[in-house]
């Protein structure tokens, strides 16, 4: 959020806000000045007060003044805009790298140690480089409080943004490139922690163990994986139909699918679930749009899918 109390949420805030201040300041000055002059002229030179107009053809010196002065002012604005933006284009070498996956309609994050989350955990005062990977269509990664935004372009190399979080807190992340049905629900949170706390979160195996312990219930691990990778943006577990079919009660049941244009009936088993994750359009559930889901090959390992299957068995 753009509000004064969190102005220093990242290292870019100062440069960007300074550019805002300069441009908006000059703009308001012109807007108010010219509007007042115009209204004054409309009043003062109304034909009631000024029955005969004085014919003036123009003034070369005035034309020169109001060409040169705005030119200089726009160059000042251009400079501040450039100066605030330039540092965004090059990430420092020692920046911590996190991969961001964007797909219809969620973001998730992969850390160097393989940890995957649906919330962007960040250490304070540490440069972070986000490698942006769009899995299907264009998305745009936008953290308003940090004043950063970068489109995520499928297939583009060297698609990144960087910043240094400077204030502990939770900040909204929006997708700002229109990406279809649930574009307005494609958001996530950046959670900035003290460096030490972050370190603990990253490496603390006991915390991991605690998380695992919380997952003692059958299928809990699978559910966590699915949350992190964003399955529930399109699939429900309560029978409601979204963009994709609901998971409710699918295990072991028969579904009608379209394979190569032919309708056939199959039973949902391990092979079918695995195939639906790696090659979602091969056996498409009847009544759903082709091409909306992309393959998770390389995103999920076979062990992950085994956990997901355990979870789906519990969704009755």
């Amino acid at each position, binding site marked *: 959020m753009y509000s004064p109390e969190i102005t220093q949420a990242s290292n870019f805030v100062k440069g960007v806000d300074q550019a805002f201040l300069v441009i908006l300041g000059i703009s308001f000055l012109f807007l108010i000045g010219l509007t007042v002059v115009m209204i004054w002229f*409309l009043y003062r030179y109304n*034909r009631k007060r000024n029955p005969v107009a004085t014919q003036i053809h123009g003034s070369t010196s005035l034309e020169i003044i109001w060409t040169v002065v*705005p030119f200089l002012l726009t160059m000042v604005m251009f400079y501040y805009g450039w100066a605030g*933006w330039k540092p965004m284009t090059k990430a420092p070498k020692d920046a911590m790298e996190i991969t961001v996956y964007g797909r219809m309609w969620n973001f998730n994050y992969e850390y160097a140690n393989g940890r995957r989350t649906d919330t962007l955990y960040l250490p304070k005062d540490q440069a972070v480089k986000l490698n942006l990977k769009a899995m*299907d269509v264009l998305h745009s990664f*936008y953290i308003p409080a940090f*004043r950063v935004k970068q489109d995520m372009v499928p*297939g583009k190399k060297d698609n990144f943004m960087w910043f240094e979080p400077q204030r502990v807190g939770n900040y909204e992340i929006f997708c700002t490139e*229109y990406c279809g*049905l649930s574009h307005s629900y494609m958001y996530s949170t950046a959670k900035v922690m003290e460096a030490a706390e972050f370190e603990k979160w990253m490496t603390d195996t006991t915390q991991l163990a605690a998380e695992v312990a919380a997952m003692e219930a059958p299928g809990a691990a699978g559910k966590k994986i699915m949350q992190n990778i964003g399955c529930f943006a399109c699939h429900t577990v309560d029978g409601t139909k979204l963009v994709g079919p609901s998971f409710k009660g699918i295990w072991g049941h028969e579904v009608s699918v379209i394979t190569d244009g032919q309708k056939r009936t199959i039973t949902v088993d391990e092979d079918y679930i695995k195939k639906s994750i790696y090659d979602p359009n091969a056996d498409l559930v009847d009544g759903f749009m082709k091409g909306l889901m992309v393959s998770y090959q390389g995103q999920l390992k076979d062990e992950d899918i085994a956990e997901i299957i355990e979870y789906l068995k519990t969704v009755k």
Partner: protein
Amino acid sequence: MHKEQAANMSNYLTYQGKYKGLLGWITSTDHKRIGLLYLYSILTMFSVGVLLGLAMKLELLAPGKTIMDAQTYNSTFTVHGVIMIFMVVVPGLPAVFGNFLMPIMIGAKDVAFPKLNLLSWYLYVAGVFLVLAALFFGNGAPDTGWTFYAPYSFKTGTNLLPAVFGAFVLGFSSILTGLNFLVTIHRMRCPGMKWTKLPLFVWTLYGTAWIQLLATPVVGITLVLIALERLFGVGVFDPALGGDPILYQHLFWIYSHPAVYIMILPAMGAISEIIPTFAQKQVFGYKAIIASTMAIAFVGYLVWGHHMFTAGMSGTAQYYFSLLTFIVAIPSAIKVFNWISTMYKGSINVQTPLYWAASFIFVFMIGGLSGLVLGALATDVHVHDTAFVVAHFHYIVFGGTGFAFMAAIHYWFPKIYGRMYDKGWANAGWLVFFIGFLALYTPMFYLGMMGMPRRYYDYMKEFQGGNILSTFGSWILATGLVIIIVNLVKSARHGTPAEMDPWHSKTLEWQVSSPPSVENFDEIPEIAENDGPYNYK
């Protein structure tokens, strides 16, 4: 034709040629009738666009579902954009007022190619039907946004190709109108009508015509590339085929940015006519206004990249596009200074067209100045693709072009219909519309600064305040619009008959009868050395 016969003939509205009624209109090559054909077709599409816009604002009154689901909302803003851009504001002033007035203003009986002119209107209608058909036949209305960005548009819209083809046909209508105007302005000026005596509205049509002629073919190139990809699987834009989605954005904006200048230049031209008339004063800096028109037409080609600062262009390209964007702002500023200076020491008759013209200057300044925020790199990164852009864009295109259109229709109404509108209702309509406009779009600047993305079906609770105000504004604006349209329609039928020159203007269209005769002039006028479009005594 003999002089006597021409003088005896009825005016262009009542004239009866080979066909009667509607057929007499849709087969007419009279530039005035073609202008009105455009007016009625554009107003029809505009009404549809307004209703869609109102539905969107109603949906955004509260978070979550208000009146429609997400899919419907996404289609609504797409169809709203496509209709308003390609069928309303791009043809807008040139097709309506350019057609009606330009030949009279330069002392000609018609445009250079009257049949081509009628063909342009048919192409416009064909384009409208093609695009609408593409929108509604197939898998439901498209939900891509009016920009049709790849690769989403390739995934969802099976009808992308026909839609772009329709846009191309609309574009062709635009190219032919531009060509026709260029030839007319070059070849058909009456004796003594030197380039330096050309009314400023004609000058802006001239600049616009060049843009129409040179920028619109890019739509054709894009169409060919999309066809290659869709029909033969050549990877151009779709990354799945090895194409580059950013290339699509470049091609889209190489046309669509100059198109913004097609929308705004004639609007500036209309304002440049109205202010001297109501100030009863020589326009200030005639040559400076012409120079700024041509500068906008030229530099306007070179700034399309400012739509793509966050798309991932090279840093050098971003630098130059930002610099050029600031440079293109200067000619617009020069125009504003000259308009306001024209009022200085005038004898100002404040009438409805001048209310619209003065409020045009105000909203256009806000639109232009907020454009500086978007032209600067650092600030654009923050507000790009947020509600801020929607506010800026509507301030320019609806505030700029829309207000100028309203100014123009009230200004030239007595000439077109030979009757005067009801001034009280016209002023009331302006006031309500103006208040509604400010309430509708101003909160979007704030929402964008706060970080609310555009094309958002649903939003977080913190964005609600601004959205409520904006939705209320849309209702006020719609009320104003109804007052204005009802008043104009009633006045066109029952208004008091208008004089030839009710505003005491000096341009040629006011020296012919209201409404003009079929051939405009009984005798081609001659402009004396001392005469000029703004030579007030």
